[in-house]
């Protein structure tokens, strides 16, 4: 039975259902409970924004708070995953990856390969990403491009409550290390989500809107901006097809190629920075593998090559927007056009 809940609640529900289903699922991070050692209430926070709230009452032994020692507890997730658990560790903000990246990219991601297939690392790292709440340069980054770069990691970037729940359940049941990106601005959006548990396979993009003229590809928050842009463009007779990648690693290349074969025009939208980022990744694959289907230059809409600024007026200019996306779409249709092959 589906009902309308928030993206945040969908994540909480996925954790709850997997913890009740599988006793080896354990959740930990900084203040995922809150109140340890203090005189007041327990579960005082349930995560800095309340995502894990309520789990402590149900699973007091399987949700742990940690010291501010990301290397130790993210590494603990790696070790626990190698020895019989399915840990879900929280890296509060993905911006904090710099103090624990070794355990993620050299240990968790590589053990299986280095050991000749003799290790399995079924861990999930939940982490908050994205600009929009004036949290400044060290609490507003995207960074999923860096994780996507790393062989051995899977990278999930849900854009809706429905996807968040289904993809998180898949992540927890997955036998490889998964980095699960939660967009802080999307936490409060609502959507239809089934009560019962369900999974969404990795590497299967979601065509959220069909159209013949231009393909828009992206993940996370920008998918919503793309939809807004598409509405406006439709009014001008430009039909956009929107592909939400859902996971950046594995990547659903087929769906990207199919939409480009259909429209011949591609706009890649990415909240991450432009250099060596997701937008470039997709644009390059199409330029190599569907060049002859392209009827116009690929357009990339990304954050600029700067850190995220603090103040609202600048941060709003920093992230992509429906306006920028619409402008890019118009560029592709206005651009030089050659007959389809």
């Amino acid at each position, binding site marked *: 039975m589906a009902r309308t809940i928030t993206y945040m609640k969908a994540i909480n529900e996925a954790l709850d259902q997997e913890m009740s289903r599988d006793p080896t699922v354990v959740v930990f991070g900084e203040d995922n409970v*809150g109140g340890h050692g203090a005189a007041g209430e327990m579960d*005082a926070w349930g995560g800095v924004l309340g995502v894990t709230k309520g789990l402590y009452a149900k699973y007091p032994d399987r949700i742990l708070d940690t*010291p501010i020692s990301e290397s130790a507890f993210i590494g603990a997730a790696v070790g626990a995953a190698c020895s019989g658990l399915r840990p879900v560790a929280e890296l509060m903000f993905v911006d904090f990856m710099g103090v624990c990246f070794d355990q993620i990219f050299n240990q968790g991601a590589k053990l299986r390969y280095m050991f000749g297939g003799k290790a399995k690392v079924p861990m999930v790292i939940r982490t908050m990403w994205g600009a929009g709440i004036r949290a*400044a340069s060290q609490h507003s980054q995207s960074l999923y491009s860096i994780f996507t770069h790393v062989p051995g990691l899977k990278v999930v970037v849900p854009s809706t409550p429905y996807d968040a729940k289904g993809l998180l359940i898949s992540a927890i049941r997955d036998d490889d290390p998964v980095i699960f990106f939660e967009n802080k601005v999307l936490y409060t959006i609502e959507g239809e989500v089934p009560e019962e548990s369900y999974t969404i396979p990795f590497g299967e993009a979601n065509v959220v809107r069909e159209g013949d003229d231009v393909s828009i590809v992206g993940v996370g928050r920008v998918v919503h901006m793309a939809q807004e842009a598409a509405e406006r463009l439709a009014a001008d007779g430009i039909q956009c097809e929107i592909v939400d990648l859902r996971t950046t690693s594995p990547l659903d290349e087929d769906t990207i190629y199919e939409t480009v074969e259909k429209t011949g025009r591609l706009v890649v939208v990415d909240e991450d920075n432009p250099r060596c980022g997701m937008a470039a990744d997709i644009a390059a694959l199409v330029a190599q593998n569907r060049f002859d289907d392209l009827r116009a230059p690929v357009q990339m809409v990304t954050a*600029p090559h700067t850190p995220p600024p603090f103040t609202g*007026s600048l941060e709003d200019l*920093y992230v992509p927007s429906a306006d920028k996306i619409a402008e890019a779409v118009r560029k592709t249709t206005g651009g030089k056009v050659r007959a389809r092959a």
Partner: protein
Amino acid sequence: MTTTAPPDQASKQQLLEWYRTMRTIREFEERLHKEFATGEIPGFVHLYAGEEAIATGVITHLRLDDYIASTHRGHGHAIAKGCDVRAMMAEIYGKRDGLCHGKGGSMHIADVDKGMLGANGIVGGGPPMICGVGLSAKIRGTDQVGVSFTGDGGSNQGTFLESLNLAAVWHLPCVYVVENNGYAEATSVKYHAGAGTDIVKRADGFGLPGVVVDGHDFFAVYEAAGEAIARARSGGGPSLLECRVNRYYGHFEGDQQTYRAPGEVEELRRTRDCLDLFTRQVTSAGLVDAEELRRVDEEVARLIDDAVADAKAAPDPDPSDLLTDVYVKY
């Protein structure tokens, strides 16, 4: 509990200066707490109210050309190091006239020219930089000192622990101040620190001298910090100073603090307030009279009023500022 007496050599003017700094920090934070509630202030704001004696008692021993590295809870350190209060307020409001032109905000408030290397959004981000400050002084042959501030929670971050060892190995002119306010967000130090509340014990493992003082007692902090900084300045090497203190507000504005006991903060404000204690000490000793302190209070209140008014009235940064100052040259 016993408190430390004012130093004999302290002039009345000096005492008033210390009081003014603590009062300015308190007023700045109390006012931000009110203004934040109106929804006009963007982003995360972590208030230093209750901890004023530490920033003031430590930094008063520093010169303009000495450096500090602060934390997410950095307003107090910035004010004590001489950052412009109006520009700080404008920065927190995200305005063009802000100390960082609106690009940093509360979590990155900084003024390198004043020796303030910034608040930091990363717990444990500052201590390594202070090793660099110490190295710089050593290599350039100056007697500058670097002081790092870290919380009890931050003392669990590897970057902080590594820095203690590096400072010892390189025998750097640095002081590592631990502001132990009993909590890391919603978690008590009794839970998050393996050895219980004694963060100072960690210094010994790296060969650093370490002391603990009551962080509410300005003169206790002043005395201990004076020794540590003098030692560093005279080539005696690094040390750790743990200050036991309390914060008056939530971890950040918006925190309901249900993890604290009912009345916990009210009790602290009544019994452990650094400004009250300072006032009692200097007035009972007849060094300053209450009237003079009240005049400082009024001046500070006006300063903060003006700062807030100016900040609200100040213009946003120019859109073109988005792309500037990423590099010196690119």
